[in-house]
């Protein structure tokens, strides 16, 4: 484990969210209107049974999925499981048997009643292969040979959502909106579920435009053609009158992922030398304008509480100048990601100054020795989040089925020691909001990488503008 002397500084709580212009309103919520959302990402499908892809795409699939589908449980803002389609649950047999009582009276969008049998079928076929079965009296039981204290967190994952495919191939769930139109990677339209069991949402519709560049999104927001858009990091903290934005705690990890099939980087010492050549603090201060924070660990301090153990990110002394010959180290980045490109170029420069010839190359091509990746945390459950990060970085963490905090620390230490992936920064995720969006509390609307569109309303309703 790399335990370094840690300079004791007060860490400002990472959960303090920054925002501008997010005034709470006292007027009663209004019904109606269409919320228009734009995103860079292109989501291929919403099927809860498939959950593979790159991190940004999965992040948006998550957001869109929760409009339509719900699971038995959800995680609250402290990452604790809370009831959703399950009204209550109890655990017995040392964590091997979990019994859930389903909420009565819930129907899917096509009117089909939610039953334990249907839910058990879906959970058995889910990405987590839950050994679920229906029992009488509205109960669903998941029983396994080994205790699983993280089962509630897995059930809260969108991949555990309860859904049904109608005879004409439409996916229906129990969520606040139903899917009305889907064009892969391009657009999605959702309409309100009038019979939503938690009460009808205020919005009538939600329209998602996918594949929109950040510049296009910004222009659409300014022109009043979009209500919710992604903002680039550099848009934050710059004078921009009228920009109404929300910014998350640091939850997007920027890391170096070394290609395990490249002989250039097979030696851990060499990988550490590459890491040591990169001055996180300088990049954080200059290139990132002090936005986000240098990362010492894969999981952020605000989530685990132990990230500080991994010490200062800056090496105690300058790395020894290497005398490494051979072709330049190729540092890949996603062509559409200007920040990744900037970081790749800076790393190439730093490497060169440390005696390692290096060059930034676009694309996640097989020829890259390492790649700059951006990975959003996918869960407030630290174990699930670490597994996801590791998978996205091409690693296989040695995590037991139910890691405690010490196990998690040990697994993360091992991953860091191997240095196949190196955390660089944690960045916030930011959205620009139109003035039409109203809510009682921003935390009811946006938190972590989640949103709740059932709790917001538009003022005035779009119908009065567009004549819908």
């Amino acid at each position, binding site marked *: *484990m790399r*335990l370094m002397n840690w300079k004791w500084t007060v860490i400002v709580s990472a959960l303090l969210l920054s925002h501008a212009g997010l005034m709470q309103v*006292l007027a009663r919520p209004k019904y109606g209107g269409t919320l228009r959302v734009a995103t860079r990402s292109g989501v291929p499908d919403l099927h809860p049974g498939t959950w593979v892809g790159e991190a940004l795409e999965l992040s948006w699939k998550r957001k869109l999925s929760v409009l339509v589908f719900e699971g038995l449980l959800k995680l609250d803002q402290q990452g604790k499981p809370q009831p959703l389609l399950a*009204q209550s649950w109890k655990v017995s047999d040392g964590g091997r048997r979990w019994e859930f009582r389903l909420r009565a009276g819930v129907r899917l969008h096509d009117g089909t009643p939610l039953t334990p049998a249907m839910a058990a079928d879906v959970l058995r076929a889910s990405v987590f292969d839950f050994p679920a079965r229906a029992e009488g009296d509205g109960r669903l039981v998941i029983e396994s040979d080994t205790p699983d204290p993280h089962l509630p967190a897995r059930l809260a994952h969108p991949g555990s959502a309860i859904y049904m495919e109608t005879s004409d191939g439409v996916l229906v769930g129990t969520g606040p909106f139903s899917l009305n139109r889907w064009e892969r990677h391009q657009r999605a339209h959702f309409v309100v579920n009038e019979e939503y069991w938690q009460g009808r949402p205020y919005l009538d519709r939600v329209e998602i435009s996918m594949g929109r560049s950040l510049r296009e999104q910004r222009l659409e927001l300014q022109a009043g053609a979009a209500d919710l858009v992604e903002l680039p990091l550099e848009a934050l903290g710059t004078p921009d009158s009228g920009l109404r934005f929300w910014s998350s705690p640091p939850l997007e990890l920027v890391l170096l992922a070394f290609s395990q099939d490249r002989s250039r980087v097979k030696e851990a010492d060499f990988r550490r030398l590459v890491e040591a050549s990169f001055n996180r603090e300088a990049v954080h201060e200059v290139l990132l304008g002090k936005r986000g924070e240098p990362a010492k660990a894969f999981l952020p301090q605000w989530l685990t*509480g132990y990230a500080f*153990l991994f010490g200062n990110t800056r090496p105690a002394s300058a790395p020894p100048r290497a005398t490494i010959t051979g072709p330049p180290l190729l540092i890949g980045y996603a062509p559409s990601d200007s920040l990744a490109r900037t970081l790749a170029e800076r790393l190439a420069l730093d490497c060169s100054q440390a005696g390692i010839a290096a060059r930034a190359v676009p694309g996640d091509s097989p020829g890259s020795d390492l790649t700059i990746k951006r990975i959003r945390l996918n869960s407030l459950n*630290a174990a699930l989040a670490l597994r996801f990060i590791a998978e996205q970085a091409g690693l296989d963490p040695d995590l037991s089925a139910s890691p405690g905090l010490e196990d998690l620390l040990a697994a993360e230490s091992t991953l860091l020691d191997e240095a196949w992936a190196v955390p660089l920064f944690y960045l916030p995720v930011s959205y620009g909001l139109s003035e039409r969006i109203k809510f009682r509390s921003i935390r009811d609307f946006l938190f972590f990488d989640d949103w709740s569109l059932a709790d917001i309303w538009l003022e005035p309703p779009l119908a009065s503008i567009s004549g819908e």
Partner: protein
Amino acid sequence: MALLCFALGCLSFASLRDLSVEVLEMVDKIELAAATHKELRLTCEAISEQDAGLLPEIRSLLSTGLRRRGFVLVESDTALHVAVTLSRSLHGRILLAAIHDPSGDRIAIVSLTSLDFGSGEEPALLLKSRLLWESDKPILDVAVHQAAALLVLTAEEVLLLEKAEERWMEVKRAPVRMGERPSRDLRGRLHVSGSSVVAHLPGTICSGNLLGELVAHCEPSPASWPLLYRTGSVIFRGFPAASRNYFDGRLQTPGRVNVSIPPFLSVAALGDREEEEGWAVVGTDGRLRLYDAEFHWLGSIDRWAAEVTSLRPDCGPLVLAVRPEEGGDKLQAFRFQGARPRAEGAPLGLPGAVTALWSSADGESAVIVVRDPENGRYEAHELEVDCNR
């Protein structure tokens, strides 16, 4: 973060026994990792300055525990260094010990579970709020009278409204005059009995009648205020301190008229019946003090709640506690087992900061006034508990 700052105090006193157990768990782990050593150099630090106040307590418990296991605590650099850090994760505080053994560092982690707001289970109990009235002016208290009339007390007037077509319509209003310099954090209390209306303001009592003059006269008065009710009868009265926002500590309960406790902000009843009564009192020092029916001190909890009151739904007496939080206070129902509170149901998010929390005259509900931080308006809500979830 306000939630965490608030929870900070939870480790004191009432939960001290829990903290002892948790620290003892850390002692076990340190003992296991340092078994071959006799001398330890123990250092304790906190990641957050807000947690620094907890360190002496933790250090003391650790030192005592380690000494009892036979370790000698020294300042020498040659001793095995055990660096204990109090940190925070999303789920709460954790205590980490880095044992710097020459053969390799070892890390031990123990979660410090403090008083927990919220529940992992479907709430068996649901707090419900119903908006009664909103105003640009501070609402000091509201009273629903026989479901058909609503009285609103502000710093300037008493307002009477009656229900018509599911809306409260103004019937009449009457000014009130305060006899003394008002508090900057003004409080007031309405008492309606039959058709009689009494408005308590600091140093002033105003009397009137629903059927006649709503406020017939106001006069200077040092009278006590009715703070808690049970089935229409006042069970706790307190005396407001002049030009302040708190009660001076003198109080009256049935059968007890000369009791005095430290100055307090608010009070809740713990019991269901007079003979089983107990009281939870939020002091001006932020400490919740717990008393039995005879006002024997049961325990204290530091900075546990900003405001409390109590109500008595069908499922038994509950204490409502206001937890200040960024973006809007939260209200949580509790039951007390001795000096130990247990959260019941999910917390109720509020759209701003609570400025008043009073039990209603029937004792079965409560009223809460919330100020929206953005536009400064005040909302008065009636709070009820649904026990049959």
